[in-house]
């Protein structure tokens, strides 16, 4: 066991950075697609940048949902739940037109489409009533709903927006839920665009312990920093694997650990790791030199010169590798 430990004073950070950076130069800008989801999830370099930047809103999030054990191999049940989870707002199934002269909203329901989502005209009317309360008169005929509101032009506009965004069913944030078959395990799972772990927790038939999203920040928020680190690790590895690049896991682990070292996922760069280094000189050497120097002078900061950059700046040996050891004269 002791043999496998890294030597003290080894420059693991630099080595990790080089080991990740070198194959990064070979990464193709080509992106691959996930089956079943119309939107593209970036892979390769753009995705890696996104992860390292620790974006709060990645370009495209995905959530993989497994059902409780008894349903996990049931395709039908999966499809049912998928339909139930997918978020449908009013504007998804209806065409809403305003008529300012008559002060009314004409809502035309695409009944065929609504049917596939298991929504009836009745449901829609009820929802509208729920949201608007008594502020409007509702008339309906077949797939047409007429909403008469006695309000000013501006107010009418606001109501239109409100009506359009009325959630009819599903979990907010989840879109385009499709059932995917996992060949390895023989199980089905639901892959949905977007993320909303908070509401998924309460969703029926969902095995919440197996829910996974590629939104690292969301995982960190709900499961804590350790889970966040693992998700980050998993995502970066996935990017590298997809490109056919082999990088030792420990390098990625170090990166993930460094990004999570303050109890939250922080980006690498000016606003994250590099911007919060303990040494003034190291920070000043990176970016925004004057800002760091001025702030340091205001606080009377002292640099103990423990890092690599600082020592190179002032022209001392680096406390690393061969510079780690010191000779002390015997008295």
């Amino acid at each position, binding site marked *: 066991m002791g043999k496998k430990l890294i030597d003290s004073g080894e420059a693991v950070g630099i080595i990790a950075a080089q080991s990740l950076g070198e194959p990064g130069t070979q990464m193709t800008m080509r992106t691959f697609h996930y089956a079943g989801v119309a939107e593209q999830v970036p892979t390769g370099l753009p995705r890696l940048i996104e992860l390292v930047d620790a974006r709060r809103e990645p370009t495209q999030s995905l959530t993989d949902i497994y059902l409780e054990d008894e349903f996990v191999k049931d395709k039908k049940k999966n499809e049912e739940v998928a339909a139930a989870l997918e978020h449908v707002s009013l504007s998804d199934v209806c065409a809403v037109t305003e008529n300012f002269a008559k002060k009314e909203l004409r809502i035309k329901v695409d009944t065929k489409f609504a049917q596939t989502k298991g929504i009836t005209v009745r449901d829609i009317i009820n929802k509208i009533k729920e949201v608007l309360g008594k502020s409007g008169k509702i008339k309906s005929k077949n797939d047409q709903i007429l909403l008469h509101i006695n309000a000013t032009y501006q107010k009418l506009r606001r109501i239109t927006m409100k009506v359009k965004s009325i959630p009819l069913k599903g979990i907010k944030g989840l879109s385009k839920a499709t059932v995917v078959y996992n060949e390895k395990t023989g199980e089905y799972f639901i892959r949905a665009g977007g993320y909303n772990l908070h509401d998924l927790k309460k969703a029926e038939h969902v095995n919440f312990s197996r829910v996974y999203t590629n939104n690292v920040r969301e995982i960190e928020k709900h499961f804590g920093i350790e889970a966040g680190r693992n998700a980050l690790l998993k995502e970066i590895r996935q990017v590298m694997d997809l490109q056919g690049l082999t990088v030792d896991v420990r390098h990625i682990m170090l990166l993930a650990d460094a990004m999570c070292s303050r109890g939250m996922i922080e980006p690498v760069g000016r606003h994250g790791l590099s911007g919060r280094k303990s040494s003034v000189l190291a920070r000043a050497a990176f970016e925004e030199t004057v800002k760091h120097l001025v702030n340091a002078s205001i606080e009377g900061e002292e640099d103990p010169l423990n890092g690599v950059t600082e020592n190179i*700046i002032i022209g001392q*040996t680096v406390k690393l*590798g061969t510079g780690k050891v010191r000779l002390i004269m015997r008295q």
Partner: protein
Amino acid sequence: MMTTHKEKSPKEKTKRAVVYLNGLYMGFHDNAEELVREIISKRRSGELTPNLNVSYQAGSGEIHLNTSGGRIRRPYIIVKNGKPLLTKEHIDKLKANELSWNDLIAKGIIEYLDAEEEGTLAHVATTEEELTSEHTHLEIDNSSITGVIVSTFPYPDHNSSPRLTMASSMMKQSLGLYSVNFNYRQDSRAHVQFYPQVPLVQTSSYKALNFDKRPAGQNFVVAVMSYYGYNMSDAVVLNKNSIDRALGRSVFYKTYETEERRYPGGQKDKLMVPTPNIVGYREEELYKNLDEDGIIMPEVSIKPRDVLIGKVSPPRFMEEVATFGITEEKRRENSITAKGGDYGTVDSVMLSESLAGNKLVKVKLRSLKIPEVGDKFASRHGQKGVVGYLCPQEDLPFTKDGIVPDLIINPHAIPSRTTAGHILEMLGGKVASMSGRTVNGTMFSGEKEDDLRAELKKYGFNEAGEEELYDGITGEKLKAKIFIGVIYYQRLHHLVSNKMHVRSRGPVQLLTHQPTEGKAREGGLRFGEMERDCLIGYGASQLIKERLLEESDKMIALVCANCGSLGVHDYVKRRDYCPVCKGTRMEKIEMSYAFKLLLDEIKSLGIFPRLKIGEKGK
């Protein structure tokens, strides 16, 4: 616009068009096609300038007329009713010099099209056979799809286009006979090759461009094989004896010049042999070849730092008022010296007058450049290489006829770059040297591979161009047959002798005290951020310190033990003190000058940086 179009009938829509001239709106025309037809016919008849081009896409509603400069235009033969207007009569007249190119344009037989007109209105046939009544133009020759340089390459249709791009940019760097009066010219840099040859495999445009009057290359006997690893990674092995027989030899001319400039205040430079009382006087040794007038004599050998033109200039700044009226002018040495790496002979000295009427001197230096390890050679197929070894002829392989290659390239250079043209040229060159004629390698219409093979067979060679070679060292027959042929190689002007540069100590920059950069300043090679990262990665901390401090801008600074600011040494009182706290407990600290600069800069921000000094090693 859209709505107006929608209201009109589709027929009308296609006819009406906006007319733009050089991108500027001119007006409407109700029948676009008619207008276009009229413009073109007027251009051909000479009523409109032949420089005008039209473009019109049916239904687009826009006609663009262009006369502006900078468009790329190509000539085409005009076709009417499926018949080219250029007839045999014209060609005969052209041959007899009774007709010129411009006559053809004036007669409306040939016209120039730009990319836009070619793309929208022209329907061009590539050969006469494929002409139909639909066609409007005929390509003059198919090889004209390339530019001037590529048109001189043999078999370019067998190479990949990036290689042609590379080959054409390399041809511009090749050494040859750039000018016949080079002896009277004073080019600042010029190369002239000894015995330039006309290539054995030529194209139809080669002679037309008069390239054969000023060739830039030589025909080499080339073998495709490895040679003890001396031709790995695009290196080439050259035959030392061929080099001694002046293969690839060239001469390099470099001109130094200066003038006797006049300065405000009536002062003037003086060309003379500087005297020891002049500020900045060099060693006497360096002036020894100067003539009385301070200018070097022709045919004198020169080495770097030798003075070529002795010049004395007035002081850069005005002299302080002298105490006793008489000012002995402190004149400054400002001679022109040979730069680093410039070994050679003075070829000629030219005396003249500059535009400003000052005395102007130009000294031309000549140096013989015999190919050596590190010089660059290239064929006309983007196959470049650097000499890796000059091999004595007796060690090189030879054929049963006693042919020894001049150059050996590595077979690995061929397959991944798909330069089949290179191989074909070698084959063609072999045929040419046996038959005594030049081989035609014009794009699309050159001599076919099968014909070359058949001819080679006729001369008793292996038709694939492969021969059995004997090892020059052991005399044994090589196991594999080796492809050997004759191909045109160019020596490129990247010569090591002009680039070689070393430094162990040398000048430093004024501001940072770090070594200078670049060959001209006798500088060092930058040890950059990424290189530094590598040393950190190795944990070689002493080495980093050596590279970045000891070998760079190390200095000893005085630091006040009391307040931590930088101190000074008072030479009068012979003591160190701190100008901030007036303390005298000063420590000598080793640091980089760049760090001292950083401290200065921080101070200029109004921040007081203190250095806390501890025991060494703690």
